């Protein structure tokens, strides 16, 4: 299993969620974060005070997926989040040691498989499968 962490522009969030949905990626957590990358700071003025805003608003998505679903997930995020201007964000793919589903106690592969999809149908040899296969 992998954890895909994507930092994106807040205004691309809806488009990214839509692409993920089309790619059958169903489990995602988001949080609002602030960060600094290579983009130019914007300047704000309040009465006599002028400030350069060093941190920009971003949205952070965390998606736990099985190995063969990493690429479709990453592609979906890139498709929707890319504007071509500095500040589009980053995607990190991290190894995951263990996953538990709290409701059932299921572990690992089964725990990141959406409800209703038997885990054995995607157990092996389907790494290059199309986006229609459940993750």
């Amino acid at each position, binding site marked *: 299993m992998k954890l895909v962490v994507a930092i994106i522009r807040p205004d691309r969030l809806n488009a990214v969620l839509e692409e993920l949905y089309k790619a059958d990626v169903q489990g995602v957590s988001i949080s609002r974060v602030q960060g600094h990358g290579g983009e130019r700071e914007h300047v704000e*003025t309040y*009465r*006599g*005070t002028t400030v350069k805003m060093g941190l920009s608003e971003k949205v952070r998505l965390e998606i736990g997926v099985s190995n063969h679903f990493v690429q479709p997930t990453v592609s979906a995020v890139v498709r929707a989040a890319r504007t071509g201007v500095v500040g589009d964000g980053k995607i990190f793919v991290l190894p995951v040691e263990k996953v538990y589903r709290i409701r059932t106690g299921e572990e690992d592969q089964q725990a990141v498989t959406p409800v209703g999809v038997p885990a054995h149908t995607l157990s092996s040899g389907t790494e290059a499968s199309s986006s229609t296969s459940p993750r």
Partner: protein
Amino acid sequence: MNRADTAWMLISTALVLLMTPALAFFYGGLVRSKNALNTMMMSFAALGAVGLAWALFGYSLAFAPGSPFVGGTAHVLLRHVGLEAKGAIPHVLFMCYQGTFAIVTAALVSGAVVERMRFQAYLLFLVLWSLVVYGPVAHWVWGGGFLASFGALDFAGGTVVHVNAAVAALVAATIVGPRKDFARQAFLPHNVPFTLLGAGLLWFGWFGFNAGSALEASPIAVVAFAATMLAPAATLVVWTLLDLVRDGKVTAVGAATGIVVGLVAVTPAAGYISPSSAILLGAIAAFPSYYGLVFRVRTRLDDSLDVVAAHGVGGTVGALLTGVFAEKAWNGTVNGLAFGNARQVGIQAFAVLITIAYSAVATFVVLKVVGALVLLRADRLDEGLGLDVSQHGEEAYAEGEGAILILHDGDTETPALAPSATLGGES
């Protein structure tokens, strides 16, 4: 007395009282979120503390017959303040109307000491200041004191209210000292919409402040009303243009500030000048305050919400321009420089200087007395935590997450934790 005058003054009194909550929003929006309640309470507290001090003592000091410098004690504890005529309206209504001025003037000073002054010290200062500083100065101009007999024009309080409050603010900011990260960190307004709301409500209330200062429903009230509408409009337009020239963007905080500066500047002039002079006055008044604001942040003075630049500079400019634009054809009594009476500008300048001198010295003494009795400042940790939590035990924007209910046990003095909270960890 007639009922039309009384009706208008009843409305005006309520309008001016609304200016203090309006000021709470204006100031409250300009501070950081951790100090929002404290800043707003500094204005709200004046409604109670100064309102009461005024009724019990302040009114007498300002308006009871006395010397040219301070009123007497004839009206202490509201003695002999009844329904008899005071000018065109009942005496007790006159007392209420003037009380709303005392309240908002004292609240104005708070803008210089927000985000670090201890609330108890502030309350004590507020009450003493309204009695020792505001009362006598109001007497000089409106209570039959020496500035009135000298011929100084101050229709609704350019010097009494705005210059007076701004000088007190300057002294208070100096004595209380700057906020702990002043000039090292940027302090940004946490809610600019509040500030716009406050500015709008201030303008609304200011019609009572200026047009009500005619103390009757007369043509003079109409002159003042027109000036109160037109001068801030002109200031706002010029402020907008200055913003555009400075960095190509029209700011909302700037718009709110420009409105207040225009209102301040027209206050002493309102009932004395023609509507077209009001436009000119408002436009001129934008410049000194605008550049005063830009200049202030480069100094060591932490007049946090720029009371001096807005009210001090604006009030002084307004007081002087009153001496320029006063027009007998509109006010029926006196002309200014533009209509051949150059002497009036000198009188106006004298009134401003006297007010500055007295307010500076008296505010200094009041603050030293308060400082000798209680600590003026919150300590550094409390300041860092925010005055909402440290002074009031509340937050403006509490999340509620992680809040564990403490149950008060009927038998013991010590509060006990609710059983369900024990899962959350230590108490």
